[in-house]
C-alpha cells in the first residue's frame, strides 16, 4: 500500500496565460448555438400576463392554506393541484439582501446592485421573489424594510419579471 500521495504523485499541468497567448498551447474556441423557447405553462403564463397589467398574482392551496408566489399549479407540500388565483399587493418587505459589486459575467460594478428576496404582502409568510432594490443608499438597506414595486410604464411592459423596474423603500 502506498501512503499519502507525494507531491509529485498529484499530477496535472497548470497552464498560465502566457503560453496560451503565445500559441504554444493549441486551443480551440467555440461558441455554441443553443437557443430555446421554454413553454411558460399555465402558472407562469398567467403570472407574466398579470405582470404586464401591473399586478402580482399568486396561487393558493386550500389544504395547507398557503398563498404562493411565484405561482404554481401544484402544491409542493400537499402534492395536489392548487385551487385559486389570488391577487397580491405590489408591496412587501425585504427578507434578505446583498450589495453586489460584480455583474453576472464578472465585471466589477462601481455602484453596487441590491439584489433582495422580497416577501410579498398578501402572500403567506416567507413567500418571496427575487428582485432588485434601488433608490436608496446601499448602506441603508435593512432586512424587514418595507418596499414597493416601481413598475415600468405600461407601453414598455412585455410580460416579464422586469416589468417591475425595481423596488424602492416606502416613504413614511
Amino acid at each position, binding site marked *: 500500500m502506498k501512503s499519502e500521495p507525494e507531491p509529485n504523485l*498529484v499530477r496535472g499541468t497548470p497552464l498560465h496565460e502566457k503560453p496560451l497567448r503565445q500559441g504554444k498551447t493549441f486551443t480551440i474556441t467555440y461558441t455554441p448555438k443553443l437557443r430555446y423557447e421554454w413553454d411558460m405553462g399555465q402558472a407562469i403564463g398567467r403570472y407574466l400576463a398579470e405582470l404586464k397589467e401591473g399586478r402580482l398574482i399568486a396561487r393558493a392551496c386550500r389544504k395547507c392554506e398557503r398563498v404562493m408566489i411565484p405561482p404554481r399549479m401544484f402544491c409542493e407540500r400537499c402534492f395536489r393541484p392548487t385551487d385559486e388565483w389570488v391577487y397580491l399587493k405590489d408591496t412587501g418587505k425585504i427578507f434578505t439582501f*446583498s450589495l*453586489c459589486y460584480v455583474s*453576472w459575467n*464578472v465585471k466589477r460594478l462601481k455602484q453596487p446592485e441590491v*439584489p433582495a428576496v422580497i416577501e410579498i404582502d398578501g402572500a403567506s409568510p416567507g413567500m*418571496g421573489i427575487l428582485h432588485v432594490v434601488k433608490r436608496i443608499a446601499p448602506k441603508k438597506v435593512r432586512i424587514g424594510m418595507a418596499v414597493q414595486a416601481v413598475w415600468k410604464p405600461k407601453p414598455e411592459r412585455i410580460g416579464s419579471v422586469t416589468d417591475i423596474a425595481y423596488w424602492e423603500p416606502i416613504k413614511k
Partner: protein
Amino acid sequence: MSRRKVAVVGAGMTKFMRRALETPKELAWLAAKSALDSAEMKLDQIDCVVLGSAPDAFDGLHMKGEYLSDGCGGWKKPYLRCYVGGGTGVYAVAQAWFQVASGLFDTALVVCEEKMSSCLPHPQAAFLTIFDHITEQPLKPNLLWIFALEQTRYMQTYGIALEDIARVSVKNKRNALGHPAAQLGADLTIKEVLASEVMAWPVHRLMVSPTSDGAAAVVLAAEETARRICDRPAWIQGVGWCLDTAYWTNRDLAYPEYVEKAAWMAYRTAGIREPRKEINIAEPYDPFAYKELHHLEGLQLAPKGQAPRLLADGVFERNGDLPVTPSGGLLGVGNPIAAAGLMKICELFWQLRGEAGTRQVPGKPERGVAQAWGDLMQVGTVVVMGTKEPA
C-alpha cells in the same frame, strides 16, 4: 443477496488548478489512475464506474458524461453519471455505495471531474443559467447573489459577526498549505480576509472559493474484496442525501434543513445518535466561508447559530476537539465543483488511515463525516466513514 458492507480502498486526485493543460478526459484519467494505483488495482478489476460532474456548461460539452466515459475507465463497462449540482462529489460515493451494497457489483470506481476554465467569459457566468429561466434569469443574477442573500439571513438570524465568518477562510487556507494539490493555500489573518474587496456584501473575495480545473477519484469494494485487497479499508458507515424545494425564495435560509435530513439519514445507518460525540473529524462543504459554519450546524456538529463560537474557541482547528476541513477545503485546495466534494472523501480516507502527512489530525480519528451541498441552496449530501466495519 442483500445489503453488503462497502469500503473505500483507494483514493487519488489531480492538482486543482486555475487552468489545466489536460483535457477533461485526461484529468479524469489522472485521478482515476492515481486512485487505482493507491489500491494496487488494475482497471479490469473494476466492475462499474460512477462519474460525478456538475453542469455541462463548464466543460463546454453537451452530455459530458458520455464524452468523459473513457477517461473515467468506463470502456465497455456499466457506467453512470449522477448529478445533484454542487452536492455531486459526495453524492457520487453514495451512488457507488448502493450500487455495490446491492450485490450487483463488487467494485466501483468513482470519478469526479470539472474543467471550469473552458467556460468564457468567466466560469462564474455559467451560473446565470442555473437560475429559473423565466422568473429569475431576466434579472441577470449571479452566483454571488444567492450566497450573499443566504449569508445575510444567517448572520441576521443568529447575530453573527463578519469576523467570525472570515475565521473560516483563515483556517482553511492555512490547512491547505500542507496539501500537495492545493491551489490557494495561504497564511492570512482575519484582518486580511476582511480587507479583501467586497464581492457581494457581506461576501468578501477571500471568503469565496476559486474556480478550478481538477479531478478526484476513489475505489469502492464490497466487504470480502475490501478485506482481501486492503489492509486498512475506510468503511462507509452511512450515506444520506436530500433535495429541498426549487422555490428558494420561499424558504427560510438561516438553517439548512436539507443538510440535517441528509445527515440523519446517514447517521441512522451508521448508528450514530450523538454526532458531536461520535464523530472525530468533519469535512463540510465550504465553497464560501459561512457555508462551513452553516453546514456544521446542519450536520448537528454545532447548535444552531453556535458554530462561529466553537470555531473561535479553537474546537475546529486541526488539533482541536473536532478538526474541521483539515484538507484545506474548497477555500484552500480549490473548487472544481464535483471533484472538490470527492476530494473531501479522499481526505477522510487519508486521515482515517493516518496517511495525511503534515495535515494529519492527532489522536487517530476513527470516524469522519464529509458533506457537500448544491443547487439553489437546496441539496445536502452526506457520507460517514470510519475505521470500524459497520454493524
